[in-house]
């Protein structure tokens, strides 16, 4: 049996932190691509320390639902999962190219396939674009629109900015949007001045974050001027300095993120049949509407 184990941060304070993890786990369960799908958290139960013992398969694929390679994916998770012989060099990554390492896990009498985080997989670019579709409700959105991918910046993790730039470049290369830019919360170019960075009247803004929380629901909407108090909410689109801002919230809540988890496991050797194609179909807001 194949087991998929999704590991995520979770929160002691915010119940929404784990929501994307559970939602994507459910989407993948529905494909029956894995005999079981388990979830484990740094801050919630089951803990990263104990999640592997809840998995019963012989082939275990661990996918971190994290945005970037760094402290959590390279240090905390391998330590907590007790991956024996782990070394970040096993991923042979330049900061955005982690793939898979297969290692014995001390907690169980078995090897696990430890995959790179979802945030640096190339398929995450598609999720960002999908979020542009879902936030505008237009499956052909692109012409006349700018697209801002928002991240923390390098203050805490230099790879965090690399992931933002990587997807920004990939979206730009599609030629679909008039302008595509990376903006940051704690360094230039700052998301606060979003309107200054675009010529297009319409700007789609999508934070490359896994879950909605303080940054995506409070900081960024207020910093961009969508609202003076996040508790009052904001319009989508909202008018700011003559631009229409289509704010998408954390990309990790987009249902298609389940696809990236599957891609990571498939890259590590999981046999998942046509699950990727089915998830892409099921999570597409336009095909869903057609189905209804």
């Amino acid at each position, binding site marked *: 049996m194949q087991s998929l184990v999704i590991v995520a941060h979770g929160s*002691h304070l915010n119940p929404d932190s784990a929501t994307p993890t559970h939602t994507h786990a459910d989407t993948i369960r529905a494909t029956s691509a894995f005999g079981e799908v388990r979830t484990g958290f740094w801050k919630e139960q089951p803990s990263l320390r104990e999640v592997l*013992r809840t998995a019963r398969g012989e082939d275990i694929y661990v996918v971190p639902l994290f945005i970037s390679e760094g402290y959590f994916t390279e240090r905390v998770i391998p330590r907590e999962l007790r991956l024996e012989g782990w070394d970040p060099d096993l991923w042979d990554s330049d900061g955005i190219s982690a793939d898979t390492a297969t290692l014995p896990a001390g907690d169980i009498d078995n090897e696990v396939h430890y995959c790179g985080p979802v945030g640096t997989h190339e398929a995450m670019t598609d999720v960002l674009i999908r979020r542009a579709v879902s936030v505008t409700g237009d499956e052909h959105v692109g012409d006349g629109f700018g697209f801002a991918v928002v991240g923390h910046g390098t203050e805490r993790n230099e790879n965090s900015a690399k992931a933002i730039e990587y997807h920004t470049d990939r979206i730009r290369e599609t030629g679909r949007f008039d302008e595509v830019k990376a903006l940051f919360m704690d360094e230039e170019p700052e998301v606060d001045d979003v309107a200054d960075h675009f010529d297009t009247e319409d700007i789609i803004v999508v934070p490359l974050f896994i879950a909605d929380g303080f940054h995506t629901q409070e900081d960024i909407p207020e910093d961009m001027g969508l609202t003076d108090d996040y508790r009052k909410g904001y319009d989508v689109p909202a008018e700011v300095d003559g631009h229409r801002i289509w704010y998408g919230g954390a990309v990790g809540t987009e249902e298609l993120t389940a696809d990236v988890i599957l891609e990571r496991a498939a890259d590590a050797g999981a046999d998942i049949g046509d699950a990727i194609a089915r998830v892409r179909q099921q999570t597409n807001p336009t095909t869903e509407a057609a189905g209804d």
Partner: protein
Amino acid sequence: MSTIESGLSATQLAAFREHLTEEPIEYDGLIANHDADEAVYHIETPDRETSVAADELSTLAAEQAAYLTNWYFYTQQVGGEVTRAFCRWLELADERPVPDRYAALENGIDREWGQLAVTTTISDNGSRRYEIRHVDDSDAAADALTTHTDPLDARDIGTLDADDRYRPLRTAPSLTAGWLFADLTANEVYEAVEAFYPATIVNWHREQRGELDVDHWRDEQDRQSGIYNLITVLPDEAVDWAAAACCDDSQCLKRREWELSEAEPLTAEGGDGVFPCREPCSMVVAAGREWAKLEREDTQTYEFALTPSEKEQIEAIIDAVADDTVDEIREADVSEAANRYRVRYLREKRFDEAGNLAGTPTHPEDHDEHADSDDTDR
């Protein structure tokens, strides 16, 4: 010897026969083998020995048939060793032989797992069915509860408490009531309990086998990195206070098995929970980090003028918050020391404009310095 219709299904008998072509059965009081030369099945249960031909298997006495359906259920229908062990615990399998158990299962066998009341019943063919409800709903009519069928619904039920506050610790005794999983299979009851109380069954199972791997506080300290390195400076006596504060049964239903170290037990109670806690959880570590910061402070002698009742009132307020009884104090019951009006009165009387108790500054030296500089300015 009376033989009555055993209720054995063709599927069960086929599985039984097929298994015996490979190897004998010895399970839960049932011993069976197939003598191919004689074309006969030898079936032994604690009170009966039978040798029957294949076409006579369907007429086994009910008592022996029960042993056979019991074997079928546990070896052919329940997936996995841990689920099997849990389901056997649910029906007290190690305490009662099969006939007694089957009689009890007719009416249902009740067990408690944290705040879950799990009832096992049996159908005519030996399949078990499971019902889960909140222990506080034990006597509630089923139609007064919200029925669920998907075991993963347990995850959502357990996210918020009865006041819609987030439950960061799923094993806290704050599970909301009012729901019912009326009819679950063995594999589903496992998944529902796993969703309510993650990893508790598998840790309980390891403990049952004498294989629970306990990581004590010092192991936890040694493992930390980043901001949680700070717990390495938490004094040992503070670990005891932390365990008493966080791991008491009133706060978490796990039974704490970790100590300061294997050779250094904590004095705090570990609790009576059915499932073990094998290492300090992330909540305890996060709280420990905060306490490590606070414990860096030196004590300071303050002088407060309070009436005896006011001193006791402050103690009662701390108790009310620590024991989460604030909401139980009636609004107009000013005889309760932690009553809101009583506390507001105390604040009016004893706090100065800066919020200092009895007008005593928290940092008298800083206060004096500021006072001096003010004087100088003048």
